[in-house]
């Protein structure tokens, strides 16, 4: 029956009161005085909130919102009161920007979370670098949060404020005639124009009319100088510039002492192109010869590597030129048979080769130019017309400047972007003392800043606006991804201010682009659109037509005679830069200090590298270990000495030479003493420029030194299922069993013995993995992996990996989830060469099995090298999972080996039972324990800001390991879900994959048959490390193929 209940709103309704009935018809039973209020102007005026005010409030709140967005990030968790519209908590923003520190140039993408930049990867839109970055670029995000940065301007060594400093400097400038600027190479057009304005002055003719402006004093200086090349090009082509190289087209690459993958010139512009030519599946694979003294990263990737002394570089170049038929009557060298091969290949690849030399000697470079000219490489693989601006430092100018300073002719010196007191030492310091007004823009109290009168700390690159023009017609922009952390000011702005120009640099930059760059392009109609697009992309490429250089013209014999009297010696030194610290820019970065050197695997030190054979002669210890200490020497090069350097064995180091890395000897974090020794004093500077080679004398020091190496075993011990390598001709023959045979076991099935692939052998009915949902995995191409270690730092910054310092590293407790294993070949066993196990046993029979193994531990004097990124293999049959008593590590149904930190009780059983030893245990409470306060940035509030909020910081006593960036996988899946598509291949990238400059690492879904990863997995070269153990990893590697004939040296 229908519900007949009736509810009254009140007695009125019950009594059916008349007014009630009437009013109940209206929307509002009671009368609202709206019209009266709005109608009556008087009351409206009198009311506190007028429309006007309301708009004011509105305006303010918007302003507040936008202000809040550039608020200094606060480490305390405070919710946004007014949420800035572009920041969604938990969602990352990416900004295109540019990294240039005078050494490396890279367009970058900066990942920010809640307004904090936390991760730097390459910008793939750039055709120069194609997204390549190296460890230094990647780790630079940490230096932003360095607590030792200057927080205020300084005057006479005391903290000050900008007004005081500005007025003081302006006054002093007023009565100083000779003003000089000493900077590193400036590739920012806007900055160049500012500096030009600043350093130039008007010239008047005799009548007093303005004749024009001339640049009075602006010296660019590269601690690692390339003026040899600049001058050589000046001589041979009439253009003092650095050419751009196109490795993509180079079928033959000959490098004489040029480490072009790690440090030489614009290495980041070469890496990706070089890698393209190293793929054996393409129709051609480049042949790479390397003549060098110390084993460089480039050398390890060369097909043929010849150890030579640096004093012989010139001779070798000359001989190549000679054999090529250049009109130079060069003497024969020890290496003529190699040179013959080189010449042979060069002749067969005319116009498709690159010959480069690392020497900073003008004459050598002239001959190199001659060779390339002879081969017709100019305009094809080498382009001098469209030259690179990144290394403009001219040594002669520097020498002149120092002379002038010593003569007291310099009244004011502005030092920007360089640390000359550190790199040039006492000479410069004393000269600087004679300068009345000395201003440094150092953002830390560097050696130079310490002795300068004023320090006007520059912003960090990630706090700054800037632009860059590394190569003619190729521009990129840098935009701030966080507002200033401290009371610093961008150098450009300082210059403007002192010139009396109050426009902020941002406006200046914008107008500069409006005037100069917008005009060159045609794609955009309006500047605003152009500007926004440029900001968004980060790079603008306007390859305008440029005038060609003059034809080659030089007297080679003069050059050659000059080369002939290059001093040689019993022990020659080569001063190098290593991957982490570079020319010193990375020296104060804990991540880079703890990143093992790609070759020696030594951290937190620079050291003398020497050939082990020679070390044994000298009775030095060649095996480093926790308690196996290094011998110590003092090195003297023309009068200057660096004391107490440990000696580290470097197989492949040319006999009679030693190597030593520059850039060390700075204090890191809160450490009391400097890390390593400053080797710059050993760089000799004369009128010909800097020389990074020299004749050295060693003096033994009776003192033993702990060196912290992460890998103490040098060779592969003849194990051919860890890394696999073959030669190109064997590979091209195409018989998989020759270079990548499957692992088989002898099994008995229904009465007969058969060889069965281990993949098919299983003790139990396993959990299904094939073709069920996702199965995340990786393929890593050992051919294109050059061992640069960018992935290592990238992993550190993505996954909040603790820095543990030298002592703990020495104890074999490095926390890196991703390490790069380096194996040298031994005389008794090539690295991972297939099918030579029986050779090994034959040898074993000859010299007795045990002796064979002992000898196998020694690397050859000039070994072949292989780099193998090693991280959790995410085995389907993981040993670690089975043994965990509390099920803290189990397998996800997406093929991931998961680690539940907060369930782990720390028995370390999983780590013991991991065949790959990739699990890392938190031995201490790294984020709080006093031992790590000095080194671990995440122990101070500022350093903690770099932590990735998506990844938990592990506590003491738990196990951790590579999670295959599960946080990124989840994010990617979420995006796909929102877009309601299936996860697109390549839409998810692990940190290591994004960082890899050569794209050697491919991450993807192995169950997705179309994905790149599964493509690589099914490739003929694909193998899994120690597959015969049967743990069925989800990481596949691809056999390394060297461009050699079989049994070719």
């Amino acid at each position, binding site marked *: 029956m229908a519900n007949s209940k009736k509810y009254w709103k009140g007695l009125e309704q019950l009594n059916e009161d008349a007014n009630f009935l009437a009013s109940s018809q209206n929307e509002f039973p009671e009368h609202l005085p709206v019209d009266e209020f709005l109608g009556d102007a008087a009351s409206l005026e009198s009311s506190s909130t007028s429309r006007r005010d309301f708009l004011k409030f509105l305006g303010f709140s918007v302003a507040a919102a936008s202000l809040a967005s550039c608020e200094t990030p606060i480490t305390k968790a405070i919710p946004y009161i007014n949420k800035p519209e572009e920041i969604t908590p938990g969602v990352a923003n990416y900004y295109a920007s540019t990294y240039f520190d005078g050494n490396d140039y890279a367009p970058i993408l900066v990942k920010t979370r809640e307004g904090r930049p936390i991760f730097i990867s390459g910008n793939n839109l750039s055709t120069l670098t194609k997204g390549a970055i190296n460890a230094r670029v990647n780790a630079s995000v940490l230096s932003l949060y360095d607590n030792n940065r200057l927080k205020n301007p300084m005057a006479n060594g005391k903290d000050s404020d900008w007004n005081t400093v500005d007025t003081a400097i302006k006054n002093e400038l007023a009565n100083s005639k000779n003003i000089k600027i000493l900077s590193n190479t400036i590739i920012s057009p806007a900055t160049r124009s500012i500096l030009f304005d600043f350093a130039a002055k008007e010239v008047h003719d005799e009548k007093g009319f303005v004749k024009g402006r001339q640049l009075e004093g602006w010296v660019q200086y590269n601690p690692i100088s390339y003026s040899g090349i600049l001058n050589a090009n000046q001589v041979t082509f009439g253009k003092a510039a650095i050419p751009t190289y196109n490795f993509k087209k180079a079928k033959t690459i000959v490098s004489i002492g040029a480490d072009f993958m790690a440090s030489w010139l614009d290495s980041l512009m070469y890496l990706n192109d070089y890698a393209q030519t190293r793929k054996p599946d393409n129709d051609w694979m480049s042949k790479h010869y390397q003549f060098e003294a110390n084993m460089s990263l480039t050398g390890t990737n060369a097909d043929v590597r010849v150890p030579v002394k640096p004093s012989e570089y010139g001779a070798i170049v000359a001989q190549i030129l000679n054999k090529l038929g250049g009109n130079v009557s060069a003497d024969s060298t020890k290496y003529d048979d190699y040179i013959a091969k080189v010449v042979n290949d060069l002749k067969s690849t005319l116009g498709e080769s690159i010959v480069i030399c690392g020497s900073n000697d003008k004459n050598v470079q002239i001959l190199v130019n001659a060779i390339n000219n002879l081969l017709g490489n100019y305009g094809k693989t080498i382009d001098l017309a469209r030259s690179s601006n990144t290394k403009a430092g001219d040594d002669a100018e520097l020498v002149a400047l120092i002379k002038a300073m010593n003569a007291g002719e310099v009244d004011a010196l502005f030092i920007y972007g360089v640390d000359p007191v550190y790199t040039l030492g006492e000479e410069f310091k004393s000269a600087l003392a004679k300068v009345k007004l000395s201003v440094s823009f150092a953002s830390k109290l560097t050696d130079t800043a310490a002795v300068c009168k004023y320090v006007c700390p520059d912003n960090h690159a990630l706090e700054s606006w800037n632009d860059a023009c590394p190569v003619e017609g190729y521009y990129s922009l840098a935009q701030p991804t966080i507002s200033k952390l401290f009371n610093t000011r961008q150098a450009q702005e300082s210059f403007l201010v002192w010139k009396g120009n109050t426009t902020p640099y941002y406006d200046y930059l914008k107008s500069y682009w409006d005037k100069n760059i917008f005009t060159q392009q045609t794609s955009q109609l309006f500047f605003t659109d152009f500007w926004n697009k440029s900001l968004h992309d980060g790079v603008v490429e306007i390859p305008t037509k440029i005038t060609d250089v003059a034809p080659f013209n030089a007297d080679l014999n003069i050059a050659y005679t000059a080369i002939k009297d290059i001093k040689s010696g019993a022990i020659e030194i080569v001063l190098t830069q290593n991957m982490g610290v570079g020319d010193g820019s990375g020296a104060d970065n804990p991540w880079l200090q703890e990143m093992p050197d790609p070759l020696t695997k030594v951290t937190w030190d620079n050291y003398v590298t020497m050939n082990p054979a020679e070390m044994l002669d000298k009775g030095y210890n060649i095996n480093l270990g926790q308690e196996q200490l290094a011998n110590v020497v003092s090195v003297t090069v023309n009068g200057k000495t660096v004391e107490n350097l440990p000696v580290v064995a470097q197989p492949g180091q040319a006999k009679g030479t030693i190597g030593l890395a520059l850039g060390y000897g700075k204090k890191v974090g809160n450490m009391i003493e400097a890390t390593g020794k400053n080797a710059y004093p050993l760089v000799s500077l004369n009128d010909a420029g800097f020389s990074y080679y020299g004749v050295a004398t060693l003096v033994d020091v009776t003192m033993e030194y702990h060196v912290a190496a992460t890998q103490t075993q040098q060779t592969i011990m003849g194990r051919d299922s860890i890394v696999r390598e073959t030669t190109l001709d064997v590979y091209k023959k195409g018989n998989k069993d020759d270079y990548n045979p499957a692992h088989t076991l002898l099994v008995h099935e229904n009465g007969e013995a058969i060889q069965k692939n281990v993949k098919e052998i299983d003790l139990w*009915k396993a959990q299904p993995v094939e073709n069920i949902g996702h199965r995340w995995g990786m393929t890593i191409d050992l051919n294109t992996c050059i061992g640069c270690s960018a992935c290592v730092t990238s992993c550190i910054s993505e996954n909040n990996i603790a820095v543990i310092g030298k002592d703990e590293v020495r104890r074999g407790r490095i926390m890196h989830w991703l390490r790069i294993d380096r194996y040298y070949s031994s005389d008794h066993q090539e690295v991972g060469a297939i099918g030579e196990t029986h050779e090994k046993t034959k040898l074993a029979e000859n010299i007795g099995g045990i002796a064979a193994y002992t000898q196998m531990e020694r690397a050859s004097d000039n070994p072949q090298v292989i780099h193998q990124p090693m991280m959790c293999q995410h*085995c389907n*049959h993981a*040993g670690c*999972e089975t043994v965990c008593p509390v099920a803290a590590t189990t397998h996800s*149904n997406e093929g991931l080996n998961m680690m539940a930190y907060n369930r782990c009780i720390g028995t370390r059983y999983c780590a013991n039972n991991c065949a790959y030893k990739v699990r890392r245990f938190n031995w201490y409470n790294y984020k709080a324990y006093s031992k790590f306060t000095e080194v671990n940035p995440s122990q101070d509030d500022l350093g903690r800001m770099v932590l990735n909020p998506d990844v938990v910081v592990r506590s003491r006593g738990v196990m951790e390991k590579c999670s295959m960036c599960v946080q990124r996988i989840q994010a990617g899946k979420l995006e796909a879900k929102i877009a309601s598509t299936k996860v697109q291949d390549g839409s998810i990238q692990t940190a290591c994959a994004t960082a890899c400059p050569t794209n050697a690492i491919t991450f993807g879904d192995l169950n997705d048959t179309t994905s790149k990863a599964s493509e690589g997995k099914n490739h003929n070269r694909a193998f899994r490390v120690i597959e015969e153990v049967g743990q069925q990893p989800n990481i596949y590697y691809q056999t390394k193929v060297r461009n050699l004939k079989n049994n070719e040296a």
Partner: protein
Amino acid sequence: MSDKKIYAIYDDDYVLLESAKHLVAKGVYIRDVFSPFPVHGLDPVIGLKRTRIAIAAFIYGMIGVSLALTGMWFFMIKDWPLNVGGKPNFSIFTNLPSFIPITFEFGVLCAAHGMAITYLLRNWTLPGFKSRNPYPRTTDDRFVMEIHTHDNEVSEEEIKSLINETCVLEIDVKNS
């Protein structure tokens, strides 16, 4: 007439045993014997039934085994199956090999402890309990028979005289 306890005290297990045989032959019912260590061969003489404590132990053991198995089945297979190292956990049989050790251990655990507890309870020996042996030296070097007059038709004197035929050290009579 009230029940009397007659205690025949010996200083040697062999003598006690022989004497017990003698008395029992004479139709005397021996209620109990107190000795510092087990006197072998005595139980049948004084008519003690074999203890069933071993059977109890077996039952406890079986309980333990089944508990362990059902527990592991529930934890690993029913309640929250996990992919641990790709090992199968589809049914208890696929997973059985790795269950065996704990099943065994737990069975032993239950058997041993269950039996021990039963043993202590049946002997009425638990911390703080009073001992009921008539003479302190029965736990050292004395062997004592306890004979109740109620249990026997023959009179107290006769029992005494029968005991006196054996090489008894001392006869003591207590009212209960």
